[in-house]
């Protein structure tokens, strides 16, 4: 069973979103963390079918509603050059890779997971578009 880290999860998702032409996303906690949680829940459901094991969890704090894992995922993605934070409040992210790079990133490590990430991107876009702050 393939080990899937939180950074792998987000890298695959960002690459797929890039292929779909998504460029800008709001990451306000009230908005973004629940969206990523919904995507993660789908990942957990579908992981056995793709023979992958996510070795992380996303559990938003019951009081504050945020997830440290989500925030670390975003920071790592920025360090990896996949996204950038928009100044001055850093409440939006921009996907820095194009569709071509997205394809490259998926094909290198996640070729077999392409349908899974397609599915996760659909969940992301659906939940994101219906979240209160978009």
């Amino acid at each position: 069973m393939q080990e899937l880290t939180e950074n792998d999860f987000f890298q695959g998702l960002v690459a797929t979103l890039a292929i779909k032409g998504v460029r800008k996303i709001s990451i306000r906690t009230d908005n973004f963390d629940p969206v990523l949680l919904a995507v993660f829940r789908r990942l957990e459901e579908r992981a056995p079918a793709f023979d992958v094991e996510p070795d992380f969890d996303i559990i938003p704090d019951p009081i504050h509603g945020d997830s440290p894992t989500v925030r670390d995922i975003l920071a790592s993605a920025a360090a990896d050059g996949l996204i950038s934070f928009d100044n001055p409040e850093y409440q939006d992210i921009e996907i820095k890779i194009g569709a071509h790079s997205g394809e490259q990133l998926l094909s290198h490590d996640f070729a077999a997971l392409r349908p899974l990430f397609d599915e996760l991107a659909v969940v992301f876009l659906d939940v994101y578009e219906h979240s209160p702050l978009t």
Partner: protein
Amino acid sequence: MAEYQELDEFRKRIERWTEDLLRPYLSGLSARPEKSCRLSKEFNDAVWTTVVLGPLEVIVLDSPLLQRLRHIRQLGVVHLVYPSGTHSRLEHSIGTLHQISRLIAGINVETKLIPPGWVSLLRVTALAHDVGHGVMSHVSENALLNFHSTRRLLKQFSKTIQREQRRPSEVAAFYMIGSPAFSDLISEAQRISGDHTLPAEPTKLMQLAIVGKQINPEIPLLQELISGPFDADKLDYMTRDARMTGVPVVTDIPRLVQKVRGHRLPTAKLPKELQTSVPSKQETCVVTGVALSGGRTLDELVFGQTLLFDKLYRHQKVRAAEAMVAAVFDQIAEMGVGGALLAPYSLLDADILDLDIAGVERFVGHPLDDPEEQRRAQVAIDIAQRLHNRRLFRRAYAFAQSMPQDPYRADDGHRNGLVHLTASTRRSVTRASIIDELANMVHVILDALGSRAALNAIPGDDIRPYIWVDPPKTKTQSNETVRAYLLGDGPDGPPAMPFRDEYAETPGWSNAYLLTRDTGYVFTLEELALPVYLATEKYVRMQFGVRSPGSMLPYAKQHADVVGAAKRTLAEAGFYDDAPYDIRPVPIQFEMADFPGRLAHVRSALEHYEGPVYEAQEQKRSTIMSQQRISSFVQQFGGDHADEALKMLEQLRVVGRDQLVEAVKSFVVAHPDEYRNVVPLGEAKDSSAVTTYYAGDIADLRIRSLGDALRRDDGILFAEDFVGSGAQTVSLLESLLGVPPTTTLDEEREEPLPSDLRDLFIRRKLAIVYAAGSKAGVEAVELAASRLELNLEIYRHEEIAPTANFTSGSEFEKRCRVIGEQLLADNDPAHDATWISERALGYGNDGFLVVFPYNTPTQTLTCLWKDGIVDGIEWVPLIPRRPKR
């Protein structure tokens, strides 16, 4: 709990371990009479001067569970870098108790909002909050995180308590404090001290507080004084770690404590998210936070954490030492009596630093008869001894997206390669594969360099334990702090508002500070640093497409001359036969005194070159010019031709805006009032759209479409960058007039001019100004103009002749031809041998050395602009040309 068998097993083992540790102490306590210990004790503390512990706390402190922390350094191996940072977890635990008292005092300043029993609970929780730490504190738990089983355990624990938990030490502390033995300890401490103020089920509450779960709905954020935005743990460790290591810290802790508040608020006035954590029947609750006027102190807290993280906890030498502890764990942790997860509790710091066979046998609980166990033990002991003697691993290779002055930073292939590399080094399985590959290559390199003696430094010949790949880690420091609430001091405004709403940018800037500094490293022994560098450079280039910029060498503690000499030896042994040119040894010419100056000259000439940014089928390549890019290009020609290749680049002529405007101006001045309209010769897709725009810099000229210009009376001027053979201009003129083409250029042309405009075109006074070009090209256009009966004047400002190098039949020309032929060979049936041979040195085989800021003409030498494969290796052009579509 039984849902997660591994977690349940871990709980049982921790409870058993706690029982074994505490039971003798508890037996002694049980013999003591009730209320026999009623005295407080005062402790001198290096940071907070005097700290007073009550009788119950003293009994807990005296227990082996807490005393064990005396032998565990708070900062693990930091003292190997900051010699005075030797303070223990016990000192920090006492300091945390002190800090929680100060926080409570701030909250209780006017009204006793936190009742005495809860004060006692928080104090004893603060004292015991770190009992889960194992040998060398975070160093061992970081080492455990390399085991997939640890990450799985953390996930199971998170699901169990419904809170993200990413620290094995806190899982262990949760179960130690929840153990029957610890419960007995608290009961005995209450009996002997006579202190029965603790709330009911104190150990359960302590467990919850340590993992940040709510303990009192009346004060819904009370647990956050133990584990939260400005908890006592942070207030002590930040001050203590900085003070003890001599690192300045910017956080004003006394001010922060002074600004801590507790307000009793109506439930209806709470922020929405807090209301969800308070029972509906509860009309009021106490909210803890920081005064609105103290928001800056929280910013300082984040800033202080960020600086400490960068300067202390993630110092490269600290990471090297931590890598050594992780390597020791890799060898023996799973051999331990309780498996890897219990290993941190079977050893103390001194056990690792003084590790020997007897120590390993004590750890594993049996004599080392198995050869594999013996081998692992020998390696672990060797690494431990190096740690003891401070012969630390050192950096051999460095990688990061943000590597300064990385000339390939904007290249998609390189950038994506770094993403793959970093991701692969974060996964335990793929990281191990990388280390296997590197170790194999290091053996090859040692053989080729005749340096196998380096292996004498280690037991056996397995060098894998001595190579450690440490990826960049971006654990954000600010997430917890931004959860704080700012409490209003006056009647106006909201009574409590989230800090993260008021200071939304704080996580952004603090994370950005760390993100741009954290670098991935490959660590190894001093003796293996050079071969490991050489192996890694080749491996990451071939497997991930990652280039190693020269600016990285200082970060990897490598020296260019030493690396260069080793590469030459390796090249002779065939090590680079299958490798891209850019990692092969640089030709000897590169080491001559004049080389940097020559490179700088070429770089300067190409300063304004932008080149196309295009998505080819395989990769998108940006064209930011740099000396390293130029050097890598020259390197592709090999040592025999490097000098001529560089000479060729020195002759490269950039024809840009300045040259074009100067040419047009010269012509217009010589023909006053004759030409007022400048028109693109060609279509919107052609470079004439750009050059015409440039010509618009001349005030007397108006840019018009051809149709518009033809309907006016003035002469029409076409401004062009370059004429090579003249074929393209001739083709365009023929196309406009609708006459059969005399050459096939495989280019799309628009419909001819309508007949009325065609007549006007033939009669109109026309001029073509070329910024540069060849005599033959001008003559070809003049001939065509005559044939087409055009009233056309031609002016070429600067003559650029076909390059002599490429008409001489020299060896360099032959090499360029071979390269060009290989680059042009593709699957297009029209591109037969004749077609290729006519273009191997650029269209017409004239080998022009011309480039425009926005593109490269086809007449320019092919190997300068065409990418592809040469002799089985990727060829990277210096000035790529936008492909025809």
